[in-house]
């Protein structure tokens, strides 16, 4: 089992990738309002995810309004699936440890 991907483990980025894996495309406004992130914070997270190849950015201009859309890449889906697998494995180990550990016997 490899460790958890630090880039994905950060709460905001995990949520961004979770949302993008559930939908085809989400725009900047949707992610900002749903996750209560500021524009600067979201831009920073998206920049990191884009550099890692986990998301693709599509910028368009309709009239005078610019529009930025994000979608998850195949690599991003793969990394997220691996992250969940590793997290589940860690949880299972914790559960097994809790179940197998015998309570201390107290002398009467």
């Amino acid at each position, binding site marked *: 089992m490899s460790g958890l991907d630090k880039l994905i483990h950060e709460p905001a980025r995990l949520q961004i990738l979770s949302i993008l894996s559930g939908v085809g495309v989400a725009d900047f406004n949707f992610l900002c309002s*749903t996750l*209560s992130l500021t524009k600067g914070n979201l831009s920073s997270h998206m920049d990191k995810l884009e550099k890692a190849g986990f998301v693709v950015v599509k910028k368009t201009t309709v009239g005078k309004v610019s529009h930025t859309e994000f979608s998850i890449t195949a690599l991003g889906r793969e990394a997220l699936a691996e992250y969940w697998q590793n997290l589940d494995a860690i949880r299972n180990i914790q559960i097994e440890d809790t179940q197998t550990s015998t309570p201390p016997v107290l002398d009467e």
Partner: protein
Amino acid sequence: MVEGRSHPPLQPGDPRLIMRWAQRYAKSRTISFLVQWVFIVLMLSGIGLMTAIAQMAQQTGNGALFNTIVFLMGFSIVLLVWFSISPWGGEVIWRITQWLYGKEGYVASEDDQGPSSWWVNVSFGGLIIYHVVLGLLISFEKLPVDSLHFWSALYMVPFLMIMIVYQHLGFWAWIWPVCYGLHAAGAYLGYIPMIQGQWQLANSIIPALGYGFVAMVAGHLYSRFALYKLRSLARASMPANPDASDDDEGGA
């Protein structure tokens, strides 16, 4: 893929629920449904109106008016088919979406991406042509006007069902074809009272309009609930000050 469509059971608080509710929200936004609904309502209303005028023209022996109406029916086929497949039609839909959902942002489900398959356009074009032919048959008094709902349902019910499965729409979308089909069967078997006289066409238009509208309202209400759940889950699993949170690679 762990977070696939199979939906394994998840514990409350699992961040993967965010993905599920995002998916449900995206599939419950009723805009694509609204466009189909508006098309069908316009089509049935237009055909109904033209059929009524054509019948009147034939009864009064007004050949010029009758030919004009038949020409208009043909023109409306071309217009509706063009709108449904042209990039301009797509842009209109996108602008409506932005206008209605501007504050909460734009989301499209994976199934909404890319151009429609050829068979979708063909079956949609078929729907229009089929109804225009029905209108013409009623105009020529080859079909009783009361049977329009029944014959309409024979095409529209399977068409809507296929579209719902193809677009992976939510449970709410089934309200339209199921109720429209049951209503048509009930009317055909005589269990549902029919409007008589000059408003006979309402027997077809009201169910098409009404059940589609009910389905859209149900979908819209479900999308509000899905968005509420999504935001609640996101806020519950986010640190108190998200702007201050970042990893060891540097702050935002």
